[in-house]
């Protein structure tokens, strides 16, 4: 099982994702520079957090034009598992692999803290090892994580069960008190309609070891490792 971690020039969670899947999960991992166009032999693509091209314009807006993205789109369209974390999620939105857009946090400030998210769907490659309704303690670290989509688009996401992570209170309720950034419907993460592409604002790679305050994020990587090993997901 080999993870590819795409490195944009302003990625800054690339090493963290590498550490999580290589040293904690024990899988193979390699960095793929954004100017490369070869995902040969890759089983899962991670678009890591950071500020891909500085993001002075709109987060992720320039990254979609990086040469590697054409291959990532091809890989996703062929059914390969792709996960975009934080800035990676923003890149997925800009690339059209997932619907919607990010606004500034309603606090208008960058926020770094642990939040609780509920696993809403377990039939994706990245949540299949979760219990339905499982609550994960994961960090967020973003200034633009306020997910927005038109009401009709949100309704469609709900109908298709594409909302896979929601911000919740300790009681597990997806209400405003549990919403750190103002995201519509408390949406913290989505999957594509074919369920192989997942994007989320929280950082599971920062929560893979209890020494860091939570190991709840590891289950996402264990999920995809299992899915790939069992042949449940791969790029055809």
């Amino acid at each position, binding site marked *: 099982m080999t993870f590819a971690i795409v490195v944009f*020039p*302003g*990625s*800054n*969670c690339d*090493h*963290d994702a590498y*550490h*999580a899947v290589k040293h904690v999960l024990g899988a193979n991992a390699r960095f793929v*520079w954004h*100017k490369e166009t070869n995902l040969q032999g890759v089983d899962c693509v991670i678009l890591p*957090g*950071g*500020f891909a*091209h*500085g*993001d*002075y314009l709109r987060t992720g807006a320039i990254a979609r034009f990086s040469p590697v993205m054409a291959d990532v789109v091809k890989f996703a369209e062929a059914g390969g598992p792709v996960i975009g974390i934080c800035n990676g999620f923003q890149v997925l939105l800009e690339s059209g692999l997932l619907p919607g857009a990010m606004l500034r946090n309603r606090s208008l*400030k*960058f*926020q*770094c*803290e642990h939040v609780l998210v509920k696993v809403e769907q377990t039939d994706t490659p990245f949540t299949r090892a979760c219990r339905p309704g499982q609550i994960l303690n994961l*960090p967020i*670290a973003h*200034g633009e994580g306020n997910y927005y989509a038109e009401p009709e688009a949100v309704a469609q996401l709900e109908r298709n069960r594409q909302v896979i992570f929601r911000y919740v209170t300790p009681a597990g309720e997806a209400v405003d008190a549990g919403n750190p950034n103002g995201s519509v419907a408390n949406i913290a993460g989505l999957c594509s309609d074919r369920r192989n592409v997942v994007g989320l604002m929280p*950082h599971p*790679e*920062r929560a*893979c*070891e209890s*020494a*860091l*305050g939570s190991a709840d994020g590891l289950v996402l990587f264990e999920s995809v490792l299992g899915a790939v090993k069992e042949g449940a997901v791969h790029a055809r």
Partner: protein
Amino acid sequence: MPVDPQLLEQHGLTVEEGARIIELLGREPSITELGIFSVMWSEHCSYKSSRVHLKTLPTTGPRVLQGPGENAGAVDIGDGLAAVFKIESHNHPSFIEPYQGAATGVGGIIRDIFTMGARPVALLNSLRFGSLDEPLVRRNVEGVVAGIAGYGNSIGIPTVGGEIEFDESYAGNPLVNVFCLGLAKADEIIRASATGAGNPVFYVGSKTGRDGIHGATMASAEFDEKSAEKRPAVQVGDPFMEKLLLEACLEVMHSDALVGMQDMGAAGLTSSTCEMGSRGGAGIEIDVALVPQRETGMTPYEIMLSESQERMLLVVKRGREAEVEAVFTKWDLHAVRIGEVTTDGRMRVKHHGEVVADIPNGALTDNAPQYRRPMARPAWLDEARTLAFDTLTPADAGAAFLRLLASPGIASKRWVYRQYDHMVRTNTIVMPGMGAGTIRVKGTDRALALSVDCNGRFVYLDPAAGAALAVAEAARNVACAGGEPIGATNCLNFGNPQRPEIMWQFGEAVRGMGEACRALGIPITGGNVSLYNETDGKAVLPTPTIGIVGLVEHADRVVTRAFAEAGHVVVLLGEGLGELGGSAYLKVLHGLIRGVPPALDLAREGALQRLLVTLAMERISRSAHDCAEGGLAVTLAESCFDTGVGVDVDVSELAGPAAGWGVIATLFGESASRAVVSVAPGDFGRLDAAARAAGVPITTLGQTGGDRLRIRVGGRSVVDVALAEAEQTWAHAIGDRFHRAH
């Protein structure tokens, strides 16, 4: 050109200094040369007032790999690794333009670290502002915090800790001191020196603009009502460019094609060129026409003095240029050859081939003026050190406790650190607000505990004692986590050194800091001096900030300040002497900065710190928290808040009379060399034995548990409050001041 007094004054130079320039050159300087001298001889670059004092600081030790004189210091942390670290100020720019001033402060110190070949892994900051009740101060705080966040978050270096204090004296002159630490292989540290005649000199990074011209000179003068007009002297930061430079430079260092490099910080191309040449015992010749420029029509003077950010100067082995260029091309950076190393020890600047400056390096560095400025103990000091308790009415202890928790200096700083990415790089094992910021060192069992500290009130009342207390507190913080203090860096923020009482404060503070560091065995491997922190003739509280690196042998044994669970025994290590001089209590409840700061016995302090490290590494202590601002009562409260575990203690053994000043002094006195630890009941015997062996007195205070915070004297409760209520008061005090205002 003729050098007249007016021209000299515009350049921040005295008439005597002008004469010295002519003497050193053997002729009148050109305008470009005058500009070069003005920045290199500015206080900021030359340390002309401070150097005679700084020479007395201890800078050596068995772990020191690099002392002062390079871009940053370095200490050996075992496993073949070095911690490379330094703290630097960006005070003046942060007042004029808070966001960019603070952001470029972060950018500057990060460059200092990666210039040494180290990957930056942690940032801390020490901030000082005026009262949060002032709208302009709040605006300044918002801008500075956002600027630090904007730069650090983007480049992906976690801000793992720091400290903030508020005092009216900083209202027109905030302090923004940023500490950065990086990791390098001990045998791969890069020095910023130029050697090898004929080796090419490369410029890489942002283009040069007219921003920041005379920034170093601005940082060497007082503020007055015209300071806002100096906004063009503040630089604008581009963290993405810096990220590219960081990655590209670290990649280039792996190739032995590199000879040396230096960032262009204060005094930009000027200081990097002459300092690299000077360190290498060589000279450098450049042609400024080759320097990439952002604006048209820039003169050599402007190019040499620009402080545009995110620029590096590299010396590369001749014939190996292509290897280096390939790395920069990968990162979409353009490395431009602007000159070469020479043998004549001179800094020669050409413009389209015509020489516009030709100066011996030594004239700018070693032969820069040095002053032993007059010092005088301030006349007001005796009065400030008297504390007539009989003229004051002691506050009710319970009410005072809540007032202290709600005071911005003591209240939770979550509103601030939530804006900083403090987890990126997945090394942060102690979060901000939980004690010394602590990062694990991947690939080893070790961790580094980091702390920056200074209590300006103590320094104001006794500069030598106050600076020593700052060292003791910072070192005690890292020791609480289980870290042995192994290195320090300082950032000395003072007023106008041409005033004898300010110079006295400076000299005394350096003396006290040196004594404390010598006694505790902590070398100071570098730092920064920021003088002229005055507005309209009124200086800030003298603030010699110290940053300390603690080495933790076992990362999995790090201890935080938070009580772990109910039923643990709460113990005070050290002795309270009921000292209220310079305390937060006097400041917050009575509006006074008066009295004599707490006494400090450095031998006792050292013994306490060694005990704290032992207790953590032998898994005896389950929490450890230094007693500092707000005294024992605030220390206990802070240990409760993070985990919501209450506490019930009796301080009779410490207290004087149960009413009046005795209780106040016991609860809120800030005696040095104390810490509150908690242990599981079964481990009390081990704690007692370890404390006896270390010669540290201990007092059992009570135990953890419940949902209240209760402090009793005999049978009587002097503080008895629901933990949730106290926590709310403490948690929201800072954030509410901003929200109310909007």
